[in-house]
């Protein structure tokens, strides 16, 4: 919402300075977004007269002008391409050194097709006065040569733009803003109530509201004819104000409707009576009906929309935009002025459906003052008669003004309860009264009726807001929130803690945390087991971001590839975030995932004097997954690894870490070459996902404390023995180690695999796995017989589990 300072003062008697007004507007909730003075930008431009216009010797469309700048100096030679440039035209001159805002150029002396040019005659668009670029400005012969154009045009009136919140339709008008400022103590509000205009004779055009059984989309409609008018340009003062707020003056009739829209927040429409055939019918649109709008575009309607039609068909989109064919022109002599009420929700829907944003829609969808429907019509009639002459008929009024009266019981203590502000009842009543609320009563609870222009006020809290915003939020003292306890306890849930632990553990392993989109492309989703319809967006912002991700890996892989394409091929990334199994809250779960590309292993990437980093492998991903699981307190010693993994991983170089046979806590492996190819990725890439929510929460043993229990150590030296077993290729390390560990329960405290060998001495299809077993004696030193007994049971257990034999 824009207005000028002088315009505001039509409605507000005040000595306040511009700064005070601006500061107060923001303080009471009418946030000032910008204050501009067009005069500042237009300071250099002066009024000049074209003395002579000759054809350009080298160009058909150009002319060479001789321009009198009005400064007594010799005329300036200016090359000009405007079709309307002619001798005698008085326009606006820009000279070398002047900055021309509309074309963003600082002029210099130019040479156009070999003819020197010492400036330019400006169009309205070049001065950012309007979009008009039909030609250079033509001010009329009486404009004073040499004078400042901004001063002449009265553009030294500051323009204030406020960001209006959608709840305040009353302040989509200069008068409404003035009322708020007056309530805040900045002056006296001038009511300026339009006098009613007594018409002669009935309005010859009847209006019918025809909605049948459907909800009426137009509750009330007022229409009046003014005959014998002369429509020309509106007066300069009106044009200046309209231009200042960014509107283009058209003609007096149209300008009056625009002016009242901004002045009073009352949109109106004018029809050229000569172009209206028969009566006006306000009804729902019919499928296939069309209208050429005032903006030159054609709109099609359906029965959800409200139109005004006559015998020729649709003439106007009710409350949104008029039609081109029934619009008023300079030839109009009889005008029908419409002031109606429209259903706000329907205006919003129709405007959205048709893609039309107009000043009328803006106000009607927020809610205009129903009680100003007829006064607004009177004001328009008055202005039409004043500016264009003519005589008015009586008002043709159809429908019923909705009764918006409501009474709110307002306990004044609500102000203190909700804001902490201590105000007396008279102070509270004073604020509300100044805003136009009707207040009665003097006890603890008063009765308040909001004015007709405040559709946003319904309850006690709304009234508290009115009081506090006018009194000022600065008056509310900051009050410490009482402590709930003296020392705050733990606030994070186990899930939240896990995410933090996994995040920092992975970062410590050299991975960099990424945050990638929650939505990925269909191809990515499908490659990672997703692509369900319930997880596909109906209106994605781009096809690349269409499906809720079933995995974090595709996003990380794409990110790694982007880095590679930028010249950083060895990257290690991770993300802790949500994945989606279906569209319910339970379908969403938290995952920590990571991806290493190129040579970005744990010990560093690329070549190095201490040894070159190898290509990343499945074991890098496994190590990351295990580290994350350990960090979040998963029972890592109980996990089993399964060589089974989803299709996006290399079947021979991937695995799952499970707790029990079914609960998958993590997956890891090398990305499948098929997935790489399908998604335009270059490997090697290894990745893991840890399913944070799948890890069981440790049962909160009703433990007395946090004691870790006593440390149990032995003074006796541990004994270590090596064994090498020859086994079939298919035997996994886990099977062998598990057998060895389980061979003896009390003495064996550790088994590590220190060598895997294939080659000379070992038969084809077999391998040798060497383990180092630690035996910890408890109460006495072990004898050779003790050790041999354990060794025998290890040999037996491994043989039983794997078929392996001790290597000879």
């Amino acid at each position, binding site marked *: 919402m824009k207005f000028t300072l002088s315009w505001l003062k039509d409605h507000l008697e005040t000595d306040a300075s511009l700064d005070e007004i601006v500061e107060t507007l923001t303080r009471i909730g009418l946030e000032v977004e910008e204050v501009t003075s067009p005069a500042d930008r237009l300071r250099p431009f002066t009024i000049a007269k074209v003395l002579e216009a000759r054809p350009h010797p080298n160009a058909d469309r150009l002319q060479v002008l001789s321009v009198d700048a009005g400064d007594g100096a010799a005329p300036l030679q200016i090359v000009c391409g405007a079709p309307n440039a002619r001798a005698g035209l008085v326009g606006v001159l820009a000279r070398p050194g002047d900055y021309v805002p509309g074309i963003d150029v600082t002029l210099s002396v130019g040479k156009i097709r070999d003819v020197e040019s010492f400036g330019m005659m400006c169009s309205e668009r070049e001065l950012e006065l309007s979009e008009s670029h039909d030609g250079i400005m033509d001010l009329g012969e009486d404009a004073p040569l040499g004078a400042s154009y901004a001063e002449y045009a009265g553009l030294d009136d500051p323009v204030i733009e406020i960001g209006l919140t959608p709840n305040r339709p009353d302040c989509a008008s200069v008068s409404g803003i003035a009322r708020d400022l007056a309530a805040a103590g900045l002056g006296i509000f001038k009511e300026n109530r339009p006098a009613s205009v007594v018409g002669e004779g009935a309005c010859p055009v009847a209006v019918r509201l025809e909605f049948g059984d459907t909800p009426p989309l137009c509750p009330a409609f007022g229409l009046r004819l003014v005959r014998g008018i002369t429509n020309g340009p509106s007066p300069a003062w009106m044009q200046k104000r309209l231009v200042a707020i960014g509107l283009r003056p058209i003609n007096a009739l149209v300008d009056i409707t625009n002016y009242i829209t901004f002045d009073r927040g009352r949109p109106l429409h004018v029809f050229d009576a000569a172009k209206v055939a028969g009566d006006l019918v306000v009804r729902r649109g019919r499928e296939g009906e069309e209208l050429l709008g005032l903006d030159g575009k054609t709109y099609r309607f359906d029965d959800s929309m409200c139109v005004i039609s006559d015998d020729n068909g649709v003439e106007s989109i009710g409350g949104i935009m008029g039609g081109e064919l029934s619009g008023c022109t300079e030839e109009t002599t009889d005008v029908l002025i419409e002031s109606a009420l429209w259903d706000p929700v329907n205006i919003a829907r129709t405007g959205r459906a048709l893609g039309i944003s107009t000043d009328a829609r803006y106000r009607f969808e927020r809610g205009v003052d129903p009680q100003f429907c007829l006064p607004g019509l009177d004001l328009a009639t008055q202005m039409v008669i004043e500016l264009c002459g003519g005589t008015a008929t009586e008002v043709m009024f159809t429908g019923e003004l909705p009764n918006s009266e409501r009474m709110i019981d307002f306990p004044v203590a609500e102000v203190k309860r909700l804001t902490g502000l201590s105000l007396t009842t008279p102070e509270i009543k004073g604020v509300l009264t100044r805003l136009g609320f009707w207040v009665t009563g003097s006890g603890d609870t008063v009765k308040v009726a909001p004015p007709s222009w405040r559709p946003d006020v319904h309850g006690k809290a709304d009234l*508290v807001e009115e009081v506090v915003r006018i009194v000022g939020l600065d008056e509310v003292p900051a009050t410490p929130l009482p402590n709930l306890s003296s020392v*705050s306890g733990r606030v994070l849930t186990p899930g939240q803690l896990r995410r933090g632990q996994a995040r920092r553990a992975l970062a410590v392993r050299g991975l960099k945390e990424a945050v990638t989109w929650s939505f990925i492309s269909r191809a990515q989703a499908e490659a990672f087991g997703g692509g369900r319809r319930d997880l596909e967006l109906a209106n994605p912002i781009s096809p690349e971001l269409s499906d809720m991700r079933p995995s974090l890996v595709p996003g990380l892989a794409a990110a790694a590839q*982007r880095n590679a394409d930028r010249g950083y091929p060895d990257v290690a990334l991770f993300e802790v975030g949500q994945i989606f199994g279906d569209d319910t809250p339970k379908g969403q779960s938290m995952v920590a995932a990571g991806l290493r590309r190129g040579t970005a292993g744990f010990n560093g990437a690329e070549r190095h004097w201490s040894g070159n980093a190898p290509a990343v492998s499945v074991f890098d991903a496994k190590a990351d997954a295990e580290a994350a699981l350990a960090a979040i307190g998963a029972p890592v010693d109980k996990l089993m690894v399964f060589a089974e993994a989803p299709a996006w991983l290399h079947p021979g170089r991937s695995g799952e870490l499970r707790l029990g046979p079914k609960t998958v806590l993590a997956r890891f492996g090398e990305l499948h070459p098929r997935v790489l190819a399908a998604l335009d990725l270059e490997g090697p890439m290894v990745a893991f996902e840890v399913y944070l929510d799948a890890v069981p929460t440790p049962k909160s043993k009703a433990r007395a404390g946090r004691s870790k229990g006593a440390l149990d150590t032995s003074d006796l030296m541990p004994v270590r023995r090596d064994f090498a077993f020859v086994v079939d290729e298919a035997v996994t390390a886990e099977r062998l180690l598990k057998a060895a560990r389980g061979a003896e329960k009390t003495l064996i405290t550790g088994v590590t695999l220190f060598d895997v060998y294939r080659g000379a001495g070992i038969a084809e299809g077999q391998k040798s796995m060497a383990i180092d077993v630690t035996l910890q004696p408890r109460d006495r030193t072990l004898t050779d017989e003790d050790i041999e007994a354990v060794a025998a049971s290890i040999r037996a257990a491994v043989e039983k589990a794997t078929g392996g034999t001790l290597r000879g």
Partner: protein
Amino acid sequence: MSDLETLESEILAAVAAAASESALEEVRIATLGKKGSVSERLKMLGKVSPEERRELGPAINGLKARVGEALAARKAVLQEEALTARMEAERVDISLPLRRPPAEEGRVHPVSQVIDELTAIFADMGFSIAEGPDIETDHLNFTALNFPEDHPARDMHDTFFMHPRADGERMLLRTHTSPVQVRTMMSQKPPIRVITPGRTYRCDSDQTHTPMFHQVEGLVIDKGSHIGHLKWVLEEFCKAFFEVDELKMRFRPSFFPFTEPSMEVDIGCDRSGGEVRVGEGDDWLEILGCGMVHPNVIRNCGLDPDEYQGFAWGMGIDRLAMLKYGMPDLRAFFDADVRWIEHYGFRPLDLPTLFGGLSR
């Protein structure tokens, strides 16, 4: 010169001349060894007369002792020399650069770090963290929050919708974390103090808008919290978060469907240097919206608005990070450019705390 004196001077010369421990060992064998020259002399003592023995005995034993000392001394010198030589031979170029340790290589994303900072501050004020799903119902995202039926934010333009389900219900991606406030009020008994960080989504994309972003909202519901408390909480938060002692703040009346009264909050800043500096200067920067929870919302959550009251606020986490740490472009947050993460990310072990300061 007696025979013994000659022998002694020869031996000492040989000891001194021994250039290595093995050469010295040869000298020892040749002198004190079983058949060495000194040992031979000692053996001869048994064959001479007692008188001679009385005289020769101390002389030869003296010789033996002095030779022993000379050998030991020489050995120490040679060992020292050998060690010095070995040390020299083992010298390495200690300027050889090492690989950067993984913990130096890794980074935590600014969004995660800022959420940890928010958590540290609000936990201290007795808040816990509440969360909810990203895919929400229209009811929890809009209706329960007092959005009128045709509020512009329900427009297809702003909200990402899923395909309608068979029963016609249309799920959506939450446009704010406010549904978590509703979920919290419906599942917990007041007093409630929570913050709700999380991902939010809007159909919008330019330098300052991305289709996905992060928001944190706060909610306090009890029987007495009012705008004065709200101002205090936000003032304390802003000072703590931006790590400044004083901060100008401005509360402006505004409008949100789910709060009444509603406010927007600006903080004082300086924009003169091209970068926004919080806590200095005379400019204002809007950072959050807030207000008293609308009675309709309280009612929609099954509480009586005449008994319970409270306030809520919401702000962009990415924006807070940009303001505090000076990132110019929101889009870069989600691009995973390792150069960006390296520069704007945080070291893994720099966990924000109030006792240690939020940031280095």
